[in-house]
């Protein structure tokens, strides 16, 4: 509940402050956000599975973000940045969908 509140507060703060994303961060932030969302949905699913662990969540969150940013960085260096970004987004999107499907089955038996 507290992390969810944090999420809402973060969104509100971002909307109110209208922050400028630093140039060096601009290519990585979208992918990092998708990766973090994947971690969040994975955490909710883990809660419902009864195997949630705070430490695992924090580590998976951070590693997701770092790995996503690194993949984008590597892709840019290799000249396949856009393709690799698309690939990462597809993979994370599939994971998010499967997590959401699992959550849905837990909560609504459907």
């Amino acid at each position: 509940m507290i992390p969810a509140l944090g999420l809402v507060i973060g969104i509100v703060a971002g909307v109110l402050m209208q922050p400028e994303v630093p140039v060096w961060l601009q290519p990585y932030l979208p992918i990092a956000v998708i990766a973090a969302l994947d971690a969040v949905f994975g955490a909710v699913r883990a809660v419902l599975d009864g195997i949630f662990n705070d430490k695992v969540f924090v580590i998976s969150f951070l590693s997701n973000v770092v790995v996503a940013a690194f993949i984008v960085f590597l892709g840019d260096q290799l000249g396949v940045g856009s393709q690799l970004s698309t690939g990462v987004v597809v993979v994370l999107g599939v994971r998010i969908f499967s997590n959401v499907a699992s959550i849905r089955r837990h909560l609504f038996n459907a």
Partner: protein
Amino acid sequence: MSSSTPPPTPSPRSGTAWHRLGRAGRPRPTKANVLATLLALGLGFAIAAQVHQTSIEGLENLRGDELIRILDTVDQDGNRLADEIQTLRSSRDRLKSDTTSLAEAQKAAQQRLDSLAILAGTVPARGPGIVLTIRDPEDGVTAPLLLDALQELRDAGAEAVQINGVRVVANTYFADKDGGIAISGKKVTAPYVVTAIGDGSTLASAMEIPGGVTNSVRSVGGQADVQAKDTVTVSALQTVSEPQYARPVPSPTTS
């Protein structure tokens, strides 16, 4: 895959799931929970920042091929718009020149109308000229004398002439009538006041040359008085009647 995970408690499944979710949502002051909250805070902030960034985003963080594609599109758009500008500009120029020539034609037509109207005597005219007053106590002034006077005035460049309120135009004729003169069938009597528009001094000297109008009038016992003025008004009008027999011959070239 997750539906196969057995619930740890034997209570009904849906109730358990909501229960577990509620229990997980309960605030626990553990270090990891605080850290997770911070991470969620950062995520929310990042989402909002990225959404904002995307909405104001320019071309900075696009990749090379995307930039090339956009550049191609912009180039094509530019060419298309340049063509359109060319077309529109030429049609504007065409319309403008049409308008100009139309206005010029209208102006020329108006000038022509003005000069023709003055010639035909359908409009009043004003300008420098003379007023020739002929007194005729002995009834000696005849139509030929008045015609001579008119001829002299025209010779001296008179552009509009009226005699006693009768406009003198191309088809004006003079005839003697008892006690006066008929101009185009309208009887006028002495004193005859001839108003003529033209160069005042030329007209006046034309009246006063030896053997001219002044002399002739004096020789028949009358008295002619010429006044050159800066502004005289020829206000008498003549109605134009449709020619009954004469028809214009179409000229092969329009002037």
